């Protein structure tokens, strides 16, 4: 897609020039806070909305000129549930197979396959009404895959899932592209999800892409490790003078530093930091990246705590 913009009636500029290209077999992440324009982007690519300007091409087909061919190429899992809860899981899949023109033998085979994939085989004949939120999400993921799309759109695929189910879904998604022939565009505001799953991530905020790189490239762009100290009276000026300290931020007794070679320099930092209650060190997460580029945190749930090479230690002063 190139130079995509979308202005809604009422003058909300949801997208202000979005550019990216997803490669074959790639998992591409759109990461951004609420209202960033992630869903709007997907809706345009899925031909549910028309862009105000710019060009959107999916699987070689222009979304405005050949929407029919675009729709044949894609599968989508919407942010909100969109299955019929009066029907059973299997019936929902059956209807989907019919709508995509799958013939009986192929249809039945695929339904069993995708049910197995999302581990819903034994609940397939229950009405969706009786599913838990996570089961319903998995059913819709299965449905998005049923007709073997070339491009799969996942709008916050793990929203509202417990950590276990989330891990579950990550594993499927990871496995899907390994089989080949599928590219995935997924949106999320979970850092961890983008880091674990995506080959490349675009951070989007207020309708603009702020930065686009591999998760690794993004974290490296921050330039060092993050050291967070809970401390009373740090010698901020002395710390700021050290050449290995890249940035320094003090907020309510919490001192956050970006530090090159943090492991070697930690002892000296601790010496200068005054009466340290606790110290936490981690290689930068995408949250730090977001902070780095926008100066704001992505709002996220408390469960987003301990990921990566994060270490927690309590240090008592001798």
């Amino acid at each position, binding site marked *: 897609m190139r130079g995509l913009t979308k202005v809604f009636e009422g003058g909300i500029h949801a997208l202000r020039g979005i550019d990216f290209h997803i490669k074959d077999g790639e998992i591409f992440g759109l990461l951004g806070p609420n209202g960033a324009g992630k869903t709007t982007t997907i*809706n345009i690519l*899925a*031909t*549910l*909305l028309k862009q105000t300007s710019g060009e959107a091409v999916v699987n070689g087909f222009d979304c405005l000129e050949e929407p*029919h061919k675009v*729709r*044949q190429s*894609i599968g*989508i899992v*919407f942010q*909100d*549930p*969109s*299955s*019929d*809860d*009066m*029907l059973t899981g299997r*019936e929902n899949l*059956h*209807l*989907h197979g*019919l*709508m*995509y*023109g799958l013939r009986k033998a192929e249809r039945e085979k695929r339904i069993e396959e995708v049910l197995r994939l999302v581990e819903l085989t034994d609940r397939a004949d229950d009405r969706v009404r009786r599913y838990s939120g996570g089961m319903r999400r998995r059913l819709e993921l299965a*449905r998005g895959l049923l007709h073997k799309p070339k491009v799969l759109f996942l709008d916050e695929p793990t929203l509202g899932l417990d950590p276990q189910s989330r891990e579950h879904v990550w594993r499927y998604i990871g496995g899907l592209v390994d089989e080949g022939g599928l590219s995935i565009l997924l949106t999320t505001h979970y850092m961890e999800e983008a880091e674990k799953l995506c080959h490349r991530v675009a951070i989007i905020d207020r309708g603009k892409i702020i930065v686009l790189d591999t998760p690794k490239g993004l974290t490296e762009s921050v330039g060092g490790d993050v050291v967070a100290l809970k401390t009373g009276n740090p010698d901020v000026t002395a710390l700021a003078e050290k050449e290995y300290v890249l940035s320094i931020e003090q907020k309510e007794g919490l001192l956050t530093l970006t530090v090159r070679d943090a492991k070697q320099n930690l002892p000296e930092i601790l010496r200068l930091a005054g009466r340290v209650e606790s110290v936490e060190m981690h290689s930068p997460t995408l949250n730090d990246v977001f902070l780095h580029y926008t100066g704001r945190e992505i709002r996220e749930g408390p469960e987003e705590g301990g990921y990566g090479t994060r270490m927690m230690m309590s240090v008592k002063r001798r």
Partner: protein
Amino acid sequence: MSELLGLYALWLREVKVYSRERSRIASSVFTPILWLFVFGKGLGATISIGGLAYDIFLYPGIIAMSTLFTSLFFGVYIVWDKRVDFLKEVLVSPLSRTTVFLGKVLGGMTDTIIQVTILLLLAPFLGISIGPRTIVLIYGTVFFLSLGIVSIGLIIGSVMESPEGFGLVVSFVAYPLFFLSGALFPIWNLPPWLRAFVMLDPVTYGVDALRTVILGGGAIPLEVSFAVLTAFSAAMVYIGTKAFERMKAY
């Protein structure tokens, strides 16, 4: 071919949901039964029209009334589809908007025809006997009337965002169509201004056709009624497919 499979899918969904909501079936036949056996019998005790007891005279009108209300209010389900986001699933599928529209229409017509069938089973209790030829003509009439009216309901539904809003707008359409249709009274002796309105109401032709085939002696020749109903339903289907093409998923 794929479009046909899709059409079948959309229809199948409507039928399954309908058959699972027993209360919907029960409530949809409850009102016509009240009309027939309370209103009809009540007035029928003292009033007869053209030599027929009022409840007998009323019977074809009540079939048309059920067709009108069930078909028109069926449009609310497209509003619900928007609400529960099932519509998005349908609109991102490769199916054409015409198929999406026709699938919904077939669903509404099926509901209507099931309901009419239940009412036909009541005929013996009113002492009305219906032969095979009559049955064919009844279903033919109901088919075209319902095709047109379901389309109207869906056209309104395609531009509405809330079921409550839909209910309000549809009541404005439903009651004039019902009262002007001659379902409750004979139309051969009306004051000219009223007659003009009555003849503009497409439901009038459905009522009169049903009355002609069930009881004999309608006010309009059967061929004319059928021609009007066919033209009316074709026009509504055409407008409906256009309305669905313009419909937004949001």
